[in-house]
């Protein structure tokens, strides 16, 4: 008799089975109850001892585990059936002695949710076709700094002209440039959480940076709103009620998919009649 080295990791139960291939009934009994296995299978001639992890109940490891005989791998495979063996091999402890592999079968593999994994990621915007970014037609606005009325775009719009959902990642800046003798500097403002970060001024020219990421449905649009805040001149340059300041609004995209076309400049007008 050859004893197998190595202590089992889980509760085990020693049983005797016939060396002939096991039947489906025997396999079911293995899964169901260790005690039943022993009662039903010890009648067999030419017995072979196997040690199995006790399914569904604890066993006395110290007593049962070492009372074993070596068996061939073929016998184990016949007894368990190829299917069960395949599943359980991940938790089987093998010990190589005398050129054979002895396995204990234990129910201890943690269950995890089965999922279907998509092998290839959805195409990004760059490969999806054309997407447009544009300023909507100027409409009535109120500049928050001086509570002045005017007209200008309410934000910028991203339009997906393709037939598939597009993930857009844009960064760049919006530049407000006077086109006449103006009396205010204009900064872009936006509701929180804002995609706009810093505004820098060069004379009366303002540059506001932004970063935007979002998903645009197939054939749909996303509007990114913003507003304006004006800081008016004082003293002799203080605006008069008859003054009308005009600005050009442009966008420079520093990071965009190649398929995205940037907006044509828009206009911003500030009136001081109130």
């Amino acid at each position, binding site marked *: 008799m050859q004893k197998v080295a190595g202590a089992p990791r889980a509760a085990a139960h020693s049983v005797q089975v016939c060396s002939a291939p096991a039947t489906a009934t025997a396999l079911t009994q293995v*899964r169901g109850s260790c005690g039943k296995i022993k009662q039903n299978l010890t009648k067999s001639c030419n017995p072979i001892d196997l040690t199995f992890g006790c*399914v569904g109940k604890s066993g006395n490891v110290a007593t049962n585990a070492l009372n074993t005989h070596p068996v061939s791998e073929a016998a184990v495979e016949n007894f368990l059936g190829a*299917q*069960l063996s*395949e*599943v*359980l091999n*991940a938790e089987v402890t093998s010990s190589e002695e005398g050129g054979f592999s002895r396995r204990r079968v234990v*129910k*201890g*593999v*943690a*269950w*995890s*949710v*089965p*999922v*279907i*994994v*998509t*092998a*290839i990621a959805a195409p990004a915007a760059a490969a999806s076709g054309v997407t447009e970014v544009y300023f909507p037609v100027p409409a009535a606005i109120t500049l928050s700094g001086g509570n002045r009325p005017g007209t200008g775009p309410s934000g910028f719009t991203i339009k997906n002209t393709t037939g598939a959902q597009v993930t857009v990642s844009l960064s760049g800046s919006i530049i407000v440039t006077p086109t006449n003798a103006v009396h205010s500097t204009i900064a872009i403002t936006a509701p929180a959480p804002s995609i706009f970060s810093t505004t820098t001024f060069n004379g009366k020219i303002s540059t506001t940076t932004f970063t935007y990421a979002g998903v645009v449905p197939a054939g749909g649009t996303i509007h990114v709103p913003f507003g304006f805040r004006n800081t008016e001149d004082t003293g002799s340059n203080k605006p008069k009620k008859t003054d009308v300041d005009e600005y050009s609004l442009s966008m420079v995209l520093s990071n965009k998919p190649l398929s995205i076309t940037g907006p044509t400049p828009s206009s911003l007008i500030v009136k001081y009649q109130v």
Partner: protein
Amino acid sequence: MIISSTPVVWRHGAYLAQVRTRSTNRVALLHLDASQPVVLEGTASTIWDLIDGRRTEQAILLSLQASFEDQAGQMQSQVEAFLASLAAQQLIEPAGVASQ
């Protein structure tokens, strides 16, 4: 132990290409009408192996319950949902309804 009473038998889809690696228990599937393949790993791959056109859902579940420790008790619903997902993607199809 809760076992579904629906004796549905599933088999692999007829219009399917599959590649598998035994060492990592992973199988890649591509339905001929699909634009991209999917991959099954771990328990998903094990269930795939148990879908043979002969086992009922109950038999598949019994095999899994004998092999895995499901402490959360979610196995049955998760397996049913997984099989439904496979069927929705035409990766499996009913082989028939077993007599009770």
